[in-house]
């Protein structure tokens, strides 16, 4: 009877292998095959709310890159086209791991890009390490994931926690009237808690007294108690460290309960938030990794790709990370000059790559130094207000709508 289970298992294995037609052979070393990037995208499941339309965007990206021939490979004296293998990881880590194994051993891709999110950024990189395939992750911002001594893994989250509010606090030190106190409201999430931990220390160092830090879980819907504490503290600056979607009820209720401050700052001021809270977002400041119109390396390419795939930068701030991970891998190959995993690995080690938002340098752990611009909402429009050299509008201080 056990024979049955053995037969069935063997049958299942054969079925899966048979059904997965082997795509184009890997281009390692060859000069005639396309270069294949393997990735998974959370198209379904809880994380899919952050990754809408990314498959289309990825396909369009490949098309646009190939319009000019592809990726320049010096050793071949020509450009090789780029091809993506994309699977849906369903927001489940075990599924992502299996799919990356598949891409390594069955689909035989050349390089890995992605995945996103710490839940996946924990289990997946060891697969890349095992098969010695360089991997540039996208939206994985938890520093502890980079502390594991992995040699084949980099990441391009925008921005990274230590740099998140650099420009904002710079701004705070230069505005008048000068704020004296600050209150943190933190979403219970590793990235957001990391931001609060880092930036509350830096605020203290800068002379801003931290009056309190309240943490809330993603499930929380009624913020009355929390807001009561915030109102009682009467801080000059309220710093909301949260994902956009989780903070929608918070922002709405802060308005309804008439919270007052010189400024209300949000670490993730996005189109999604704006759409859901409507006019409540007026006057808030936030961070944005990039904004439409600013010229930088590859900015034309990125703008075209996003327009063609109908992805808005303001809506999907995670998108820049994704696209930059692709750009980083491309630049690694071009720098190495040959389609060879070891050479690309060396090329990416402590490298500086170019992105639409500026240069990005990796440290020896693969952790980048990405940062963000400070923006402010006025009249329903998003304006870059700091640093003043690149601002599109003047900062309004203190924020009139929160007076």
């Amino acid at each position, binding site marked *: *009877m056990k024979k049955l289970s*053995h037969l*069935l*298992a063997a049958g*299942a294995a054969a079925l899966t292998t048979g059904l997965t037609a082997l795509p184009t052979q890997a281009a390692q070393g060859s000069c005639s095959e396309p270069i294949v990037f393997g990735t998974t995208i959370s198209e379904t499941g809880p994380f899919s709310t952050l990754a809408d339309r990314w498959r289309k965007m990825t396909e369009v990206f490949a098309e646009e890159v190939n319009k000019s021939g592809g990726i320049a490979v010096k050793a071949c004296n020509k450009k090789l086209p780029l091809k993506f293998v994309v699977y849906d990881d369903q927001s489940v880590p075990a599924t992502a*791991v299996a799919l990356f194994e598949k891409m390594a*051993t069955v689909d035989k891709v050349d390089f890995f890009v992605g995945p996103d999110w710490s*839940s996946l950024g924990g289990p997946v990189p060891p697969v890349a390490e095992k098969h010695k395939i360089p991997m540039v992750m996208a939206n994985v911002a*938890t520093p502890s994931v980079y502390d594991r001594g992995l040699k084949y893994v980099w990441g391009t989250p925008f921005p990274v926690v230590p740099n998140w509010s650099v420009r904002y606090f710079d701004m705070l030190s230069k505005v008048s009237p000068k704020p004296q106190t600050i209150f943190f409201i933190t979403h219970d999430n*590793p990235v957001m808690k990391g931001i609060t931990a880092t930036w509350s220390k830096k605020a203290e160092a800068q002379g801003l007294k931290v009056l309190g830090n309240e943490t809330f879980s993603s499930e929380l819907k009624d913020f009355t108690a929390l807001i009561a504490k915030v109102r009682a503290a009467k801080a000059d600056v309220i710093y909301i460290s949260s994902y956009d979607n989780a903070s929608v009820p918070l922002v709405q209720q802060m308005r309804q309960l008439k919270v007052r401050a010189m400024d209300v700052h949000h670490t993730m001021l996005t189109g999604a938030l704006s759409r859901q809270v409507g006019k409540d977002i007026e006057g808030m400041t936030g961070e944005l990794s990039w904004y439409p119109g600013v010229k930088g390396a590859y900015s034309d390419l990125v703008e075209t790709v996003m327009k063609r795939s109908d992805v808005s930068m303001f809506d999907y701030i995670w998108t820049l990370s994704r696209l930059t991970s692709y750009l980083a891998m491309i630049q690694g190959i071009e720098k190495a000059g040959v389609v060879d995993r070891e050479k690309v690995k060396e090329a990416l080690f402590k490298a500086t790559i170019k992105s639409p938002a500026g240069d990005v340098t990796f440290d020896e752990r693969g952790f980048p130094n990405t940062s963000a611009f400070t923006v402010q909402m006025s009249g329903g429009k998003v304006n870059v207000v700091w640093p003043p050299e690149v601002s599109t509008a003047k900062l309004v201080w203190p924020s009139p709508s929160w007076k």
Partner: protein
Amino acid sequence: MSKSLNAGTGWLLGAAGVAALASLPFLGNAYLTTIGFTMLIAYILGQSWDWVAGEMGYVNLGHYCFYGIGAYAFAILLVGHWPLWVAIGFAVVVTALAALLISVPLFRLHGDYFAFATLALLPLVEVLAYNLTPITNGADGIVLPVAQVLQPAYLIALGVCVLTFVVTLRINASRFGYALKSIRNDEQVAETVGVRIAPVKRSVLMLSAAFGAAAGAVQAWQMSYIDPATVFGLNVALVPVAMVLFAGSGLRWGPLVGVLVLATLQQWLLVSVKGFQATLYGLIVLLIGRFMPGGFLRARWVQNVPLLRALAREHHEYMGESDTGTPAAAPAHDLPLPRHRNLGGAPLIQLEQVRMQFGGNVAVNDVSLRIQPGEIVGLIGPNGSGKTTLFNCISRVYTPTAGRVLFAGQDLKHCSRDQIARLGVGRTYQIPRPFGDLTVQENIAIPLMFNDQPLSPRDAMREARAFIEYAELGHRLRERADSLSVQEKKALEFARALACKPRLLLVDEVASGLTPAEVQRFVEHIRHVRDRYGMTVIWVEHIFSALEKVVDRVIALEQGSLIADGPLAEVVRNERVLSTYLGSAAPTEKAGGQGC
């Protein structure tokens, strides 16, 4: 089941299969190994869930909690540099203890409420994982050192799978398994035939939790990272459950087949279909639920496919015990019952001012009576007079509001239902309550396994034959009890009560709906068990002609109160009894009241 495949061959084939699976990490590629590993984990989760659900009938929708708690306990220890096996052992023990703790409130619930409560456990434990940051590292999750452990993890998982399968076989062949199955069918009846259900429920939950934890620990090791959303997420929590239900819960091969089919299907959809995978997967689950809800292995068409039919076998063990070549050597009238010598004047059962009140409704009103050993006493009264309630007070289905029940001089106040059964009280129910999805033989064997001198399942099944022959159900030996006719069920009910080897037999309206010949048979049975085995019988019955033939005396109840107690001939002439049965205009018709 074909006898050509004996146990030895079975184990050999099994070993070959396991060896083949064990070779996968070394012969196949990493992708197949990873998928195989996921399937192994799913099987462990699914089968351990089925012990509680398919075997015992309690649907624990929060089973994934055990997986998560095990994963966390393991990860915490591993990060603390404890050896691997200590970490796994710790995970298993901690989770089993957690299961013990949660079983206290949970098993106060039954059926759907139990399912609701267990479902709510998942978000609770997820919040605990998020908030108990000093222990669990909160939302950051626990990062385990990176070690390429796919192969050893796979092998350990395979080992646990084999263990899971073996445990399943052992459970079904043991008394424990039969206790589970009796609970699944009818908890109350199970208790009144002597099964102690509380420890059984706790044990199976702890066992289920232990294996779930092992799965969690091994998977955490392989993934080298866990956070609350990964291990407690609602989006993955029902997957193992769906897999088991898909093929057939409670079947030997159900969980295995379900995992293989659905996991393969899921992988196939993931790599071959672009978009709508969840819709297709959901559609398949939905169609199975609509058209083959017992699992597709229980569908009718499966009976026609030999391979699938073999997989669809239910857990009925010791079927061979009914095939012993020689028929029961002893004559049908010899039952393996002890013979009670009824000497001495002490009453066997004594009720002192027993009162049973439900809110404002007094069902049993300060009834006192005593019955000597060896008596056959009829209990009569119109519908609603409290006869069945009285039985329920004696067998502790209800706890009397006031008064004492003494059995052989012992106050039953602090006895549980199963203790009372083992002391020697057996009963039938007015509407037969057999263990429906078990065979006739198993129905009789269960009391034999759980009474004062318990038998092993094998011996119990053998001894059950005698009772079945006595009840003339030999031709229905291997049929499911719920497929019997009403008369056959009543006969089964009676035989099962006898199998409890009682000193006091409570018979509740066993003769209604039967032909005169069948009634006569019951009368003879009752007389026989008293004459030959010294059993004391209380018989609730409306058919006076039957009572007349065999009872020593009769007790009459009316609206909960005892109104007459004496020989039958006297009682049926008692004015109150007559007016209670016939109405107050009865007195002028006294002449015709005899023997109604």
